[in-house]
C-alpha cells in the first residue's frame, strides 16, 4: 500500500449523446486520466472549459459513475457497493464549489447551513452541535455575528467561507476545490487563498484543486496536471512544470497569462483557434490542430497519425508530446533530461 490518498487509474467518462438513436453515440469527456495525490498534498488540475477537469472532480466525488478505470481513495475502490463504506467516503471527500451563492440554500441561515452536514452524518447534536458550528465558523474566519444571517446578507467572500465551513464540517481528508475563487474579487480571492493554505496546514487536508487560472494553481499546488480534451497532456512538480514546460500546450497557456507587458499584444497570439469539440477529436495528437511547435518543426506526420504516449521529461515530470525535447520557453529554466522522443512509426 502506498501513501497515496487518492489514485486515479485510466479514468474515462463517456456521456451518451441525446438523440443519437440506435447508434448510441457518446462523447468521451475524460479519456484515460491517471493521477495520484499523496496525503497532505495539493494537486492542481488546469485546463480550458471543456477540457474535462470538472468531470474528473465529479468522478472523484462519486457524483457520476466511471465508464472505465478506477478511483482508489485510501485503499478503497470508490466503486464499492458497501453502503457503510460509501457513507464514510461521502464524509471524507468533500467539495467547495465555484459559485458560493448558488451552493447555499437561500432559505437557510448560516448556523443551519453549517449544522446540516453534521446532523446528516450524525456527527453531533444538541449543545455539541452548537459548539462544533461555532468552532467551524471561527476556523473559516467568521464570527457569531454571522450565525443568524441568510446567504443574501453575506458578501461573496463571506458566503465562500460558509461553503468552506460546510465542506470541513464532516471532517474530510480530501477536499475538491472546483474554481474556489474565480467568482471573487482580487482582494477577497487573496483572503480565501490564505484561508485554504491555513486550513490545509491545520487540518492536514489534501486538495484536488481545479482551476483555469495558472497563478492560483501555482500558488497552492505541489503538483500540476494540464488537461486538454479529456487527457492530462503534461504533469509534474508545480515549479518545474511552470518554469520549464515541456508540452507546447502548457507553453501556450503560460504565454496567455496576463501581465506580460503591452508590447506582447502586437505579437501573434500564443495559440490560435479554439479547442476542437470532443465530438470530433483530431487524429493523432489531440493538440496538433493548434500546435505552434508542429508548425515550427514543419508539420511532422507523426503529430497527425500517432497519439503520443506520456514520456518522462524530468524528475517525476511527464509530457505527452512526440517532440517534448524541442520545447523551450524563452528565458525559462533548464529543461530536464528528456528521454528520446518515441519512434513515431511504432505507434502506441
Amino acid at each position, binding site marked *: 500500500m502506498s501513501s497515496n490518498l487518492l489514485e486515479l487509474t485510466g479514468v474515462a467518462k463517456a456521456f451518451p449523446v441525446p438523440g443519437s438513436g440506435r447508434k448510441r453515440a457518446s462523447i468521451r469527456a475524460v479519456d484515460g486520466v491517471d493521477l495520484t495525490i499523496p496525503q497532505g498534498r495539493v494537486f492542481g488540475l488546469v485546463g480550458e472549459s471543456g477540457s474535462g477537469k470538472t468531470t474528473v472532480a465529479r468522478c472523484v466525488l462519486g457524483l457520476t459513475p466511471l465508464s472505465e478505470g478506477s478511483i482508489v481513495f485510501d485503499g478503497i475502490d470508490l466503486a464499492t457497493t458497501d453502503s457503510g463504506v460509501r457513507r464514510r467516503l461521502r464524509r471524507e471527500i468533500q467539495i467547495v464549489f465555484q459559485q458560493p451563492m448558488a451552493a447555499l440554500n437561500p432559505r437557510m441561515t448560516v448556523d443551519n447551513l453549517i449544522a446540516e452536514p453534521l446532523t446528516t452524518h450524525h456527527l453531533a447534536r444538541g449543545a455539541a452541535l452548537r459548539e462544533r458550528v461555532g468552532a467551524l465558523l471561527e476556523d473559516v474566519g467568521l464570527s457569531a455575528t454571522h450565525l443568524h444571517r441568510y446567504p443574501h446578507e453575506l458578501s461573496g467572500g463571506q458566503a465562500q467561507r460558509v461553503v468552506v465551513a460546510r465542506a470541513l464540517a464532516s471532517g474530510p481528508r480530501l477536499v475538491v476545490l472546483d474554481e474556489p475563487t474565480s467568482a471573487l474579487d482580487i482582494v477577497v*480571492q487573496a483572503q480565501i487563498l490564505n484561508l485554504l493554505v491555513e486550513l490545509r496546514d491545520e487540518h492536514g487536508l489534501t486538495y484536488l484543486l481545479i482551476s*483555469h487560472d495558472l*497563478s492560483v494553481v501555482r500558488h497552492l499546488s505541489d503538483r500540476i496536471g494540464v488537461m486538454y480534451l479529456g487527457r492530462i497532456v503534461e504533469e509534474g512538480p508545480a515549479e518545474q512544470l511552470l518554469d520549464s514546460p515541456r508540452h507546447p500546450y502548457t507553453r*501556450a497557456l503560460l504565454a496567455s497569462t*496576463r501581465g506580460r507587458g503591452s508590447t506582447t499584444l502586437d505579437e501573434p497570439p500564443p*495559440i490560435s483557434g*479554439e479547442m476542437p469539440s470532443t465530438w470530433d477529436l483530431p487524429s493523432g495528437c489531440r493538440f496538433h490542430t493548434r500546435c505552434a511547435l508542429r508548425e515550427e518543426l514543419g508539420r511532422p506526420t507523426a503529430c497527425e497519425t500517432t497519439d503520443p504516449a506520456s514520456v518522462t521529461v524530468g524528475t517525476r515530470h511527464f509530457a505527452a508530446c512526440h517532440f517534448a525535447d524541442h520545447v523551450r520557453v524563452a528565458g525559462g529554466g533548464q529543461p530536464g533530461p528528456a528521454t528520446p522522443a518515441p519512434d513515431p512509426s511504432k505507434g502506441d
Partner: protein
Amino acid sequence: MSRLLEIEDLTVDFSRDGRVTSRALRGVSLTVDAGEAVGVVGETGCGKTLTGLSVLRMLPDNATASGRICFEGQEMLELSTRELRSIRGRRISMVFQSPGTSFNPVFTVGYQIGLVAERHLGVGRKEGQALVAETLHAVGLPNPESVMRFYPHELSGGMLQRAMIAMAIICRPSLLIADEPTTALDVTIAQQILRLLRRLQREQGFGVFFISHDLDLVGDFCDRIAVLYAGRVVEMGATAQLLGRPRHPYTRALLEALPGRAQPGAPLPTVPGAVPTALDDAPGCPFAPRCPLVVERCFEERPVLASVGPDQAAACHRWDAL
C-alpha cells in the same frame, strides 16, 4: 492628441419614492484622448460599469446622473433621446462581458449586425449585409458568409465575442467602451480577443474605455489607468507609473493581492474589512477604515485627487509614504 471624452465630477444616485437609496458614483473625473486606451479598474460595485453606461446614458430609470460628460464637444447629459440615438452605436459603441446574452437569440448574427449599419449608415439590406461580411472578416472570423447565417447559440463564446466586436466597429466609432470584454472567455481565447482589439484600435484609431477588474489585463492593454474605489477615482496615471509605483494604498493592495507575484503558498497581503456601503457618508477618506497607513487626518478630511508626479495623481494624504 485631441480630447475625445471628458467626464467631470460625475455623480450617479439611485432613488426610490423620492429618497436616495444608493450613491453609486460620487464625483468621477477622467478623460480619454482620441486613439487612447484608458482602463478603469476596481472591485465589484465600485462603479466602473456604471461610469461606462453613464457615457452612453444607458442608466436605469431610477438613476440620476449629474456632473458633465463631454464627448466630441457635445454635452451628453443634455442631449435629447433622438440626438443620443445618433451617437450610440455609431460614434460610441460598447462591447459587453457575456457575448452569449448580448445577442438576440431569435435572429441570425448577420441580421443583427446588419441592423446597426442600416440604421446609422443609411444603407439598404443588401449593402448592409455586404458590409457585415467585410467586418466579420476584419475581426478574424473565417467564412463570414456562413457565420452570418448562424444564430447566436451556434457560435462559441470566442466567436460570438468577435461578432459583438464586429457589431461595435461596423460604423467606425471614435470611442469603444469595452466592459470586461474577456472575462467570460478562456485565457487562450482572451489573448486572441485582446490582440484583435489592439489591432483594430491601431487600424481605425478609436479610443478605448476599458473596464476590468483585472489589473494585469488592463496593464497590458491601456495607456492610462484609473482606479475606482467606492464610486470615486482614488488613483489615476500612466500605466507604467501607476503599476510600477502605486501612490494610493488601495492600488498597492490590489497589486499585492495577485497570487502570481507572491512566493507560492506564502500568505498574500490583503486588506481587512469591506468596501463601505453606497450610502455611507462618513467624512474623510473612504479607504481609511481599511488602510494600513491611516492617520487621524484621514478620518476628518477627504483627500482630493492631486498630482503626485508626472502623469500620476492620487487621492491620498499619505501618498508620499508609499
